[in-house]
């Protein structure tokens, strides 16, 4: 049975915010190392980018774009809740909007990825 404290949009928002942040923290050093290969010239970067043709890498890329977009949307909500004077009303709708915005951005990415 789901605990009452977890049956709340704010709880799910906090969980998704954390998990997406964790994924980004793991990804970030790898992202920087990958871009750093350009120090050895464009060919070195291109050799690395060849990996992005693999379906598995495309799935991982899509996941990280989803994490980034969801983390951004939920992070804006945190700033709104903490810094704007009016308390948040309609938490469920706002959290749903955050997830929706994240998914929409990811779908836009996928459309272009496969274009």
């Amino acid at each position, binding site marked *: 049975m789901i605990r009452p404290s977890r049956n709340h949009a704010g709880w799910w928002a906090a969980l998704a915010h954390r998990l997406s942040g964790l994924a980004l923290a793991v990804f970030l050093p790898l992202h920087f190392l990958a871009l750093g290969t350009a120090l050895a010239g464009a060919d070195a970067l291109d050799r690395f980018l060849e990996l992005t043709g693999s379906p598995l890498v495309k799935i991982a890329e899509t996941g990280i774009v989803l994490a980034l977009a969801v983390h951004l949307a939920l*992070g804006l909500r945190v700033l709104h809740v903490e810094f704007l004077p009016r308390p948040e009303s309609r938490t469920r709708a706002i959290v749903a909007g955050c997830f929706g915005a994240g998914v929409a951005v990811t779908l836009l990415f996928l459309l272009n990825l496969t274009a």
Partner: protein
Amino acid sequence: MTARLFMLQRGSAAVLALAVLVHLATIIIAVRGGLTAGEILGRTSGNLGWFAFYTVFVFAAAIHAPIGLRTILREWTGWRGRFCDAVMVVFAVSLLVLGLRATWAVYAA
């Protein structure tokens, strides 16, 4: 979280909010037709605007990620104390160095 870490976390979040919006738009446009070094470096190489943007982006991320990770570690694993904080400082410095190195790599290419 101390008041100073809280303000650093939220301040960097405000900078990142703008930077990530720009970054997501760039990703969505850049990924069309596949990623190539020529296309990425053609945009960034020698461009001071992108260099300044990514430098700010890297600083904000290097502040934001370790503070968030520290909170998660403290609350989910109970790991806290000076050693945990020291590891987070090493993580922050590593992100900063690797990030600035990447920023330089795509600017100087």
